[in-house]
């Protein structure tokens, strides 16, 4: 689905380099690495919101830079984990924004759009939050809503930047399980940066290891290798 060729990621100087990466449908990739190594930057570069310093990123064979924003939004969604809530913005309307790439010029939602919102809410067990204001729920609840908004977008590729920071253990486990199930059932390509090594190992997901200036793909990885790479 997404191919990276000699991609250099960073702001003014290179943070990470990916020689050749192929991210496939139906998989959940766990992006791991030390804090500050550039995992967020890497994810933002794939999403198109941050330009890469060098190299090519293609979406189904075509360069991302050649798509317009709406086309990209129909293909890739990025979960915004720093969402602080907006006064008077209800959770259901926030989730509904995920349908923006598909609604008309005035943003009108049809019954199908609302059905998707309700399904996602139920998948994430946040139906009870739908009528609440996004600035009046807890950080953990808000984080789940951010994830939900990306799910509502129904994109083939979903990127998540440390989506479990505010979640308790049960919810972290549930989210990861949900992501894995989603990728298998709906053939999605999911990339998430995370520190929950044990949970990822349990799920036997492939790893994207960010260490020593490069991002490399490993189908399986042992915990010791990861820890060693990170030190």
């Amino acid at each position, binding site marked *: 689905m997404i191919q990276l060729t000699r991609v250099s990621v960073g702001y003014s100087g290179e943070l990470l380099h990916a020689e050749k990466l192929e991210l496939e449908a139906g998989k959940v990739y766990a992006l791991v690495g030390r804090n500050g190594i550039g995992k967020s930057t890497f994810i933002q570069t794939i999403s198109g919101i941050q330009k890469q310093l060098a190299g090519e990123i293609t979406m189904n064979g075509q360069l991302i830079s050649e798509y317009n924003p709406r086309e990209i*939004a129909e293909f890739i969604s990025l979960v915004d984990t720093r969402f602080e809530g907006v006064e008077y913005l209800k959770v259901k*309307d926030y989730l509904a924004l995920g349908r923006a790439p598909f609604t008309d010029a005035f943003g009108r939602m049809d019954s199908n759009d609302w059905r998707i919102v309700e399904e996602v809410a139920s998948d994430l067990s946040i139906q009870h939050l739908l009528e609440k204001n996004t600035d009046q729920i807890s950080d953990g609840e808000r984080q789940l809503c951010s994830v939900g908004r990306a799910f509502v977008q129904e994109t083939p590729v979903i990127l998540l930047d440390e989506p479990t920071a505010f979640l308790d253990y049960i919810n972290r486990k549930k989210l990861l399980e949900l992501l894995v199930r989603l990728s298998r059932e709906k053939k999605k390509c999911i990339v998430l940066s995370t520190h929950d090594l044990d949970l990822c190992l349990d799920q036997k997901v492939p790893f994207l290891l960010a260490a020593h200036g490069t991002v490399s793909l490993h189908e399986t990885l042992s915990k010791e290798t990861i820890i060693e790479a990170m030190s």
Partner: protein
Amino acid sequence: MKDWTLKWMFICLLCFLPLAMYLHLISGQIELSFASYLDSILNFDSKNTSQVLVREFRVPRLLMAMMAGAGLSLSGMFMQTLFKNPLAGPYVLGINSGASLLIALSLMTGVHFFQSNFGLIGAFAAGLLMMLIAQRLKSQITLLLVGLMFGSFTSAIVSILESFAGAESLKSYTMWSMGSLQQVEFGQLGIILVIFALGIVASFLLVKPLNMLVIGEKSAALLGLPIKATRMFVLLLTALFAGLITAFCGPIAFVGIAIPNLSRILFQTTNHRYLIIGNILIGAIFLLLTDAFIQVLEGHISIPLNALTSIIGAPFVVFLLIRKLR
């Protein structure tokens, strides 16, 4: 807020608007018969003082009150959503500074004639400048800073002009900066109304982009919103309204900051479909009532428009600040 509660609120506002218009018309110092009003539009007789009064004084003042109230509230709303800041106002990007500068130049060099035209040119030039700059900028904060700098810069130049100006020009400029709804002539209303109407229609095209901007520029971009184009369009409309009103009424304080906040608090929504209509109605009603109050007091004290909007607006903004800090 339930949808039907919102709808009821709109209906109330819609009913209140004609009432406010009526109050505004009758608050003038002179008693006029209903016939005068009708005749002034249908059978205008330029010799009849009452009819002249209605046509050349009351109608322009009424319409300007409504358009200024609505226009400033809308442009304030645009700025507040774009910058995600409830204290932003229509003047935050220095658009009215452009108008002020040219008006100051025209007044201090004694060329009175095309005053409102100068103001328009100044405002649009400033708006254009801002749009060109916005095109090259990535960061929103930089845009805001540039706007503030532009505002300060033009204020400085105006100060210099003031120090060279004679007493009369100085007074004229000071009067202009107090805001006035009475400077517009009947003949100018046509073009103003057309521009205003175009602006309103265009505003509705921004409903979706504004609703998306509520969660931040980055997230909106990820949802497919073309950020640069959207910013430009928002700036264009803000310049249109703020520039139009500043050119014909001078700078009117606080309306653009207070009313959009009031609308959000009243309707408890971030959906701009409702906020646009709400701001138009509440803005128009507010300025109609404020100006009606000024008219009622005209026999006893003469209050400049900005004084009254500030007296009402400033405490409200303080209340907003306190609310935000809580």
